[in-house]
């Protein structure tokens, strides 16, 4: 039974609760999706291993909490440089070699990376579901007829702050401008003296840092297991395609739409069927507006 219904109309305003849940989920999805869309927009590579970095972020939070007693919000601070480094390394070791290769080579490189990482986690840490419960995950906030827990609110606030920071970085710093220039036209950027290899390295590192941080943020809310990334990443694909692959503002809007579909779908039809709705939405968008809801028509047939 849906928690909102169990508490009854006297305590919970259903519409307000659904709206708040949508916004909270949307903020977290945005942070996951923004890294994916950034990597695609600039490098023209769909990172099929994106979810695995989220899973690694969750494990980092889990082990820091159980072994060292570190709160996930403390871990967040160290996770950003750690995952930045991981992204940097993965770019240098794996992605650099295929950046100019065909789509098929790129697809199967990241798919292979996904399979390998998932199973490294399985071998090292077994397939058990693991849960952490820091104190803030059991604090319930009640505001204006809605109820939600503190971890969710903090995760949302941090996710939104990080996403906004990334936007500001892309818009106002010199490096951000260089990255956008590379996204617009790789060859012209090279002619202008931009070191595209450095841009890609930076892009991949930032994208992975975002999703690693997202993994740490969601760790008090969801179980950790080797395939944990899969549920989020499939969702991130939906978000990113809705918003238009490579479009960061589109990804924000896409996150809210997917969150709304998920929240409304699980309220009306039960949580078991919620994925079906966003996948149907996904296929619908791919068929009718493949360039995304706000994108330019025709981008998808270029194979990007």
């Amino acid at each position, binding site marked *: 039974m849906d928690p909102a219904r169990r508490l009854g109309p006297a305590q919970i305003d259903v519409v307000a609760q659904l709206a708040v849940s949508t916004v909270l989920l949307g903020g977290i999805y945005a942070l996951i999706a923004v890294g994916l869309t950034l990597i*695609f927009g600039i490098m023209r590579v*769909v990172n*099929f291993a994106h979810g695995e970095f989220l899973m690694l972020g969750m494990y980092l939070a889990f082990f820091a909490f159980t072994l060292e007693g570190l709160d996930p919000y403390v871990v967040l601070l160290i996770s950003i440089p750690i995952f930045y480094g991981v992204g940097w390394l993965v770019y240098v070791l*794996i992605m650099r*070699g*295929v950046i100019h*290769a*065909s*789509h*098929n*080579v*790129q*697809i*199967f*490189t990241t*798919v*292979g*990376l*996904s*399979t*390998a*990482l*998932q*199973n*490294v986690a*399985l*071998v090292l840490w*077994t*397939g058990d579901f693991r849960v952490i419960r820091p104190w803030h995950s059991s604090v319930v906030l009640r505001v204006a007829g809605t109820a939600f827990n503190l971890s969710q609110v903090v995760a949302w606030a941090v996710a939104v702050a990080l996403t906004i920071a990334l936007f500001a970085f892309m818009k106002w710093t010199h490096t951000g401008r260089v990255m956008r220039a590379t996204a617009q036209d790789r060859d012209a950027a090279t002619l202008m003296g931009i070191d595209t290899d450095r841009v890609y390295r930076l892009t991949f590192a930032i994208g992975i840092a975002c999703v690693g941080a997202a993994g740490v943020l969601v760790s008090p809310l969801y179980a950790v297991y080797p395939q944990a990334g*899969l549920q989020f990443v*499939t969702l991130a*694909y*939906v978000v990113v*395609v809705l918003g238009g*692959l490579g479009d960061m503002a589109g990804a924000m809007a896409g996150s809210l739409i997917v969150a709304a579909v998920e929240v409304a779908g699980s309220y009306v039809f039960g949580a*078991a*069927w919620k*994925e*079906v709705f966003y*996948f*149907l939405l*996904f*296929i619908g968008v*791919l*068929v009718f507006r*493949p360039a995304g809801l706000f994108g330019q028509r025709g981008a*998808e*047939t*270029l*194979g*990007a």
Partner: protein
Amino acid sequence: MTRLAPDRWAAVALFAAAAATPLVTRDTFMLDSVILILLWGSLSAGWNVAGGYAGQVSLGHAAFFGIGAYAAALMSARHLNPWLGLAIGVGLSIGAGGLIGYLSNRLKGPYFALSTIAFAEVLKIVASRWRGFTAGSEGVPVPFRPGFATLGLGHVAWLYLILVLALVCYALQMYLERSRVGYQLAGVREDEDAAEALGIATRRRKVQAVVLSAALTSMGGSLWAQYVGFVDPSHVFSIDLSVRFALNSIIGGMGTALGPFLGSLLITSLETYLRATFSGIQAGFTGIYLIIYGVVLILIVRFAPEGVTGIAARWRTRRDRAHA
């Protein structure tokens, strides 16, 4: 009389060795290994028709495999004829393949791959949640009913049955290598606009390739379900399975008739060997096998994207040039 090309000889040797196995040994482990090599090879050949020959790289072929597996298993579980299930599965997969093929006309590269993943995911969710019809995520056990009509066979009979499937797949691929349709598909794969300009019905050819590929994969799925005896949604519709079909073809050589079988020989033997070595630590084994699988995939597409048959062809050309 033209001389047989070396990869045709290799194929003849591979299939002859498979056919001769029961004459040499009746060891269940050996027979099982050969059956799985042929079965995964046939399934990869099915993938290869769309991914290799037509260039429509799918990451959702588990959808067709699952449709076939469920069709046969559900028929068997209801004490009906699994062959009828196989036929129904093929029919459904042709419909689904037509849909995916239509998508392939609108979407390229990563967009197409994403849409095929989404398609397989939807089927996975439906199969695991529609309890009344599919028994949900617990899966469907296939009862063993001896006889050819009910597909309850011994290992030797299974081996020859799967060998027939493999030969059919191989023959179809040969046809795609040599026929007019095959050349047209190669044109679509290499440069669609140029092919279109030459008057090739590119859209129709792509849909046909995906439909044929779906039908073969579904057939393999039905036989797999009957052979293994258990179907569960999180396995038969998984991305891992879709990747496996692609992986065999990529390792062996995409768009070649021998490639998928050669890839299956290498990968399936590796899996069987590791399973035998690491038996006992079950969870650990699957992980180690899949780590190798992922790493091999990364290395192959990076350093030898044309696969083993491609490498062999390159060596031959170099040698012939040295002799000339």
